[in-house]
C-alpha cells in the first residue's frame, strides 16, 4: 500500500467512525426530546398520546386531592383557559403547593388524565418556570384581544 492510499484509508475510517457516532448521537437525541405543552394544547388534542412530554401550569387552590395515607395524588394544572387533571404516585417536591407553577413530565392516559412520572417545582417562591410564565402570558394576551366568554 502506498502511503497515499494508507492515508486515504485512515481518513475514510475516521469519516466512517465520526459519521456513525453522529448518527447514533442524533438518534439518541431524537428519542429523548421532551416537548412542552400547555394545558390548552393538551385539551385541544395537540399533545401526543404515545410519547412522554411535559405539561406545565398553575395548581389552582383546592384542586389537590390525596387519600389519607396514600401516595397517589391528583391535582389540576391550568393556564386559566383550560385545565388538565394530573395523577402522580410518589413523593412530591418540597415546593409543590397549590397556587404555584409546576411542570409535570409523563404520558397522557386513555381517559385524558395526565399520568406524571416526575413533578418539578422551583425553589424560589418568586420564581415561575419560564415555560409556565409564557403560556400563562399567552392566555392573558388572548383574553385581552378576544371578548371574554359569557358564562
Amino acid at each position, binding site marked *: 500500500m502506498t502511503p497515499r492510499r494508507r492515508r486515504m484509508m485512515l481518513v475514510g475510517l475516521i469519516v466512517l467512525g465520526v459519521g456513525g457516532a453522529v448518527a447514533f448521537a442524533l438518534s439518541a*437525541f431524537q428519542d*429523548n*426530546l421532551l416537548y*412542552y405543552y400547555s394545558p390548552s394544547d393538551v385539551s385541544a388534542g395537540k399533545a401526543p398520546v404515545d410519547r412522554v412530554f411535559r405539561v406545565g401550569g398553575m395548581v389552582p387552590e383546592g384542586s389537590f386531592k390525596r387519600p*389519607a395515607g396514600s*401516595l397517589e395524588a391528583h391535582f389540576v394544572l391550568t393556564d386559566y383557559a383550560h385545565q388538565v387533571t394530573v395523577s402522580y404516585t*410518589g*413523593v412530591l417536591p*418540597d415546593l409543590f403547593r397549590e397556587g404555584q407553577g409546576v411542570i409535570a413530565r409523563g404520558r397522557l392516559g386513555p381517559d385524558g388524565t395526565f399520568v406524571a412520572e416526575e413533578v418539578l417545582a422551583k425553589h424560589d417562591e418568586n420564581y415561575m418556570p419560564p415555560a409556565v410564565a409564557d403560556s400563562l402570558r399567552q392566555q392573558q394576551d388572548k383574553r385581552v384581544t378576544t371578548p371574554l366568554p359569557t358564562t
Partner: protein
Amino acid sequence: MAAELGHFALILAFCLSLPQAFFGLAGAAWRRPHWIALTTRAVAGHFVFTAIAFACLSYAFYVNDFSVLYVAQNSNSELPTFYRFAAVWGAHEGSLLMWLLVQAIWTVSVAAFSRNMPQVMTSRVLGVLGLISAGFALFILMTSNPFDRLWPAAVDGRDLNPLLQDPALAIHPPMLYIGYVGMSVPFAFAVAAMLEGKLDSLWARWVRPWATVAWMFLTIGIALGSWWAYYELGWGGWWFWDPVENASFMPWLIGTALIHSLAVTEKRGLFKSWTLLLSITGFSLSLLGTFLVRSGVIESVHAFASDPARGLFILIFMTACVGGALALYAWRAPMFRSNAGFAPVSRESFLLLNNVLLVAATALILLGTLYPMFLDALNLGKISVGPPYFTVAFVIPMLPMVFLLAPGMHASWKRATFERTKATLARLLLAAVVLGVAVPGIAYGWHSAITSVGIIVALWVAFSSLVEPVSRWRKGHSLPASIIGMSVAHFGLALFIIGATTVESWHQETDLSLKPGQSASVAGFDFELIQLREVSGPNYEAIESEVVITRDGEPVAIVHPQKRTYRVQTNAMTEAGIAGRWHRDLFVAMGEPLGDGAWSFRLQYKPMVRFIWLGAFIAALGGLISVFDRRYRQRVTVDAAVAVPGVSAKTA
C-alpha cells in the same frame, strides 16, 4: 457608610483595570519597560480595591445592614454568622463581586509567580486579564450593583435561600468560580502568544501549572455541587444533566483536553494551534456558563428570575472576548505550524484521541444544552432534552477514551512499541476482567454487559496507573511530581467510574407511606419508623423522624431525617438522613404528611456512591501534585532569552 465605601472601591478597581489592560498590552507591543512596570502596580491596586469592596459587602452582611438592598434580600438577623458570610455570594450581585475578586487574585498570582517568564509575556497576559476584569467590573457597576441602598431600610432581611444554608454549598461557589475564572489565565496566555506571534514549548511550560490549578478547582467545585445536590436537593441523585451543571461541566471537559494537549505542546512542540483553540474555547464556555445562569434563558434549579439587561451585557462581552480571540486566531494560527511528525501508535496519538473524544463529548453536551434554547428563541416550540440523551452522548465517546487511557499512559513519545509494558498491561487487563466480573457479580449480581465493561475498564486504568510509580520506586529511579500527579489523577478517575457505574446500575429506591411503628425493606435492609417529633433550629422549625435501620435483626444505624420550615422564607426543606459507609449509603428522606399520622418516605440504597466524590477529589489532588514538579520552578533559561529578543536579550 461601608456600602458607599465599597461602591467607591469598586469604581476605583474598575478604573485601575483600564491602565492594567492598556499599559500591559501597549507596553509589550512597543517595548516600553516603564509601561510594563506600571502594569504590575495597576494589578496590585486593582486587587486591593476589589478586596476592599468585597470586605465592605461582607461587613454589611456581618452587621446586618438591612439598608443595603442586597443584604436585605439575602440575609436575616437570625441567620447564623457563618452563613451570613456565605450569603455574600448567595445571589447574583454578590457572586459577581466574588467573580471579580477571584479574577483579581488570579491576576495577582500570575504577576507574583511570573519570575521565570520574560517580562513582555507577563505584561501581555496581565493586559488581557485587565480587559476581562474591566468587563466584569463594568458589568457589576452597570447592571448589578450589590451596594444599592434600600430606603427606608428593611426591618429585617428576607433571609438566605434555605437550600444554600449548607456547608458544602457555602464553599461550592468559590471553588467553582476559582475554576471558571482560572480558565481566563490560559486564555490570556493564548492571546498573549498570538499577539507575540511566538509559541514554543517554554510557553506551554508556563501555562501548564495555571491550566492545571484552574482545572483542579473546577473539579472540586463541580464535585462539591454534586455532593450537595445528592444530600440536600436531589433526593439522592448526584448528577441531573441540568443546563447549569452542563455549563460547568463543558469547561471542565475542555480544560481536561487542554491540560493533555499542553503536555504534547510542551514535550514535543506539537498541537500548537489546537492548544490555542482549546484555551479560547475553555474560557468561552466559562462565559457561556455565566450567561446561561445569569440571563434566565434556561429552566434550572440555578436560574433566578432575572434582568434581560444582564444577559445582554454578558452576551456582548462574550462576543467581544470570543470573537476577538478567534479573529486573532484566524490571523495568527498559520504561524504556529509544527513540522515534527509522530507514528500512528505513539503517546501523541493517544493524547490526540483523548482530545478528539473529549471535544466530541463536549460538542454533544453543548448540542443538548443549547438546542432547546434556540428552538425557544425562534418560537419553534418548547422542548427539553432528557437526561438519557446526555448519558448516551457522554458515555459513547468516554468509554473508548478510558479504554485507551491505560495503554496511553505507557506509550512512549514519537513511536510506541510497548515492549517493556506489553506483558504487564495484558496481565492487568486479565486481572481487571476477572475482578470486574466476579466482585460485582458476587456482591450485587449481574446487571448488564455495559456495566461490566465500565467496571473492567475502570479497574484496568486503576491498576495500570500504578505501574509506572511502582516500577520506578522498585528500581530506585527518581519519581518526579508530574508522574505521581498523573498516576494519582488517573487513579481518581478510575474510582469515580467505579462509583458512578455501580450506583447507577445497582441502586434501589422506593417511595412509600410510613406511620410510626411501621417498617419497610429495601435491598435487604429493614427501615422502621420509630417516632416523629418537632424540633427547632436557629432559624427554622422541623419535623424530625427517627428511623432505625436493621439487617437480619442486627442494628445497622439510626438516622434522623428532617422536614424543615424556615421562618422567613417559609419554604419546606428536606434534610435527608444518610447512614454512610465507604461502600454504600442508606438514604432516608421525608416527603410530606399524608394524613392519619402517616408520612411519605423515600428509601434508597446507594452502593459505592461515595467513590464518585472521592474519585473526583483524588483526581484534583493529582492535579495539585503535578503542579509541584521541579521544572515549573526553573528560571528563564538560555533558549528563553533567545526566544524573546527585546527585553531578555539586553540582560543576557
